[in-house]
């Protein structure tokens, strides 16, 4: 395994009979993912895109050896679906579902963590390792196998940047869309060590956003224990400060969380910070040329 997914990843799609579940089951299979099962309670015995559907994750795991799940079930039922996956022994669960209440996510995160299941998301596009496997919804067309690792809190902005890397003639080792919700299963600091250990990754792209302090935390980790070059972009540099959370939110982060604080922290940690999304692939290409010369 490289970073979380590879050819051994066997995916069960939770909520496979819904529209999104069906569409993305097809796209994942086209990418080369082993989608081995689907789960929709009450729909056992049917098939979607040739994938057998089960009533429970436990049966799906027993019959197909699924070890990862991709979750499309609506937000009100997501907590239940994730706990079911954890209890069935699923090791990696990608939550595509958006609008999951964070109070539910708190419970889901700690439940999964205590039992050794990694969550990616929620409200995320998922993970893809070109040429190996994809769990989630990132469009297949933006990828090309290569040696650039990508981690991002955004969805479409990730596609844009990953696509730009491809257009510059480079490719990606693994790309993870972490999701932009206040509580995520995998944050930058959780993901970076995986790429540090990954022999397939030479260079890291980090796409952040204003809000929270995940980028500042990432900068600290990069400074102390990440050896590969990092190119970063922070979206929302010019976003107006209005529409903010209450005072308590401000004192938890104490002046961190702004674009300026994130950019400064990342630059101090030695990352190259792009001002605009289209600069990211340009800097990546420049660094890749430098590495190639060494």
């Amino acid at each position: 395994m490289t970073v979380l997914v590879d050819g051994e990843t066997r995916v069960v799609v939770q909520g496979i009979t819904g529209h999104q579940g069906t569409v993305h089951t097809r796209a994942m299979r086209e990418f080369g993912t082993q989608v081995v099962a689907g789960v929709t309670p009450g729909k056992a015995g049917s098939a979607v895109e040739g994938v057998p559907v089960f009533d429970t994750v436990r049966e799906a795991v027993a019959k197909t050896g699924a070890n990862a799940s991709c979750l499309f079930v609506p937000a009100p039922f997501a907590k239940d679906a994730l706990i079911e996956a954890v209890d069935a022994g699923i090791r990696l669960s990608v939550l595509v579902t958006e609008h999951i209440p964070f109070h539910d996510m708190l419970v889901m995160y700690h439940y999964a963590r205590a039992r050794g299941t990694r969550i990616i998301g929620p409200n995320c596009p998922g993970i893809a390792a070109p040429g190996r496997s994809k769990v989630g919804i990132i469009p297949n067309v933006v990828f090309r196998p290569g040696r650039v690792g990508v981690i991002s809190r955004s969805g479409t902005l990730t596609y844009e940047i990953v696509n730009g890397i491809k257009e510059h003639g480079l490719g990606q080792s693994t790309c993870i869309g972490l999701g932009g919700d206040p509580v995520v299963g995998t944050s930058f600091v959780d993901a970076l060590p995986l790429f540090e250990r990954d022999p397939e990754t030479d260079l890291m792209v980090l796409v952040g956003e204003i809000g929270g302090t995940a980028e500042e935390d990432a900068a600290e980790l990069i400074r102390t224990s990440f050896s590969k070059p990092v190119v970063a972009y922070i979206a929302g540099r010019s976003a107006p400060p209005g529409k903010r959370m209450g005072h308590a939110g401000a004192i938890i982060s104490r002046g961190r969380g702004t674009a300026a604080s994130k950019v400064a922290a990342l630059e101090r940690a030695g990352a190259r910070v792009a001002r605009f999304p289209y600069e990211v692939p340009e800097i990546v290409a420049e660094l890749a040329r430098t590495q190639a010369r060494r």
Partner: protein
Amino acid sequence: MVKLTEGRGKELFRKYGVAVPKGVVAGSADDAARAVASGAVPLPCVIKAQVLAGGRGKGGAVRFASTPEEARAAAAAILGSSFQGETVREVLLEEKVAIARELYLSFALDRTARLPILMTSARGGVEIESVDDSEIERQTIDPFPGLVAYERRRAARSLGLTGPLVGELDRLLTGLYRLFDDEDAELVEVNPLAVVGDRLLALDAKVIIEDDAAFRHPEFAAVHDDRTPLEEIAREKEIAFVQLEGNIGVIANGAGLTMATLDVLKEFGGAPGIFLDLGGTDDPKKVTEAFLLMAQAKPKAVFLNIFGGVTRCDTVARGLVTALGSVAPSERFPLVARIRGNNEAEGIAILRAAGVTSVPDLKASAQAVVAAARGGP
């Protein structure tokens, strides 16, 4: 997020057994006078505008009265006035209490720890941002056992409480944590929490309910918030829409791409002010609705920046063309489109047939829309 007014917040406090001063919410000066005359609100009393903005005390939105006539006059002066852009529709009349000490406490989310956090400070009654970190006690709370007794005792110690007040705080924290959890709050803040004799009273209430939990809380759907009328319509249609200063409308998909688009427009001297995040959709009708909503906000120019994933480019193009057909010629505005990703070629062809050119380069398209907003070519 749904921000509750103080009066609404205190209704919730009562529901969870948290003591608040005796009080009544009134929508007219007559009701205010009656609340006092009937004895429902003991005199002397305080009259507070029910608005969401802070700084009411300094801003003249909090007054005092010793007689029903004074209460009527104070309510009449505040009701209907504007406080930081909000019209005051209601006032809260409350008994004035003899405050011995003012404390601070709140429950919020610690995103890094992925846990609820309880913050307490003996320095209440002032803006908590101005209080030094060393004077704020922070305790993260594991949702599985929930808030436990020793954490409540630790909070009491941090607030310097002794005697019967320790038990008061214990009950109050238990109630407020249950509120935070059961009502899906993002924030429950009490500032000040007053020591009155051997009791604790929540003199203010700031409660923010999380939008994503609305399916569990239909009772908050009707709550008035500080959204503009168009933002309210957008919310009903589940479109993320924000109106701020600026004359360029931006329609993008995904928060990150929307923000990045804004960054690029500003760099080239544009003033983006109306943001519409389509999110992930494959319904052309939703695109049409979103575009018509944008048209109602009367932008000088609109930049459509889509990277197709779940949302296919041809879907966006179809929805857009339908919308363009129903915008009156006098209401039209320059439109610059950039659509990339899934089904890009089909989308571009549909737009071209309707006379809209898609500019693939982000820099070039941003420059074009900035020029258009200035009335240039």
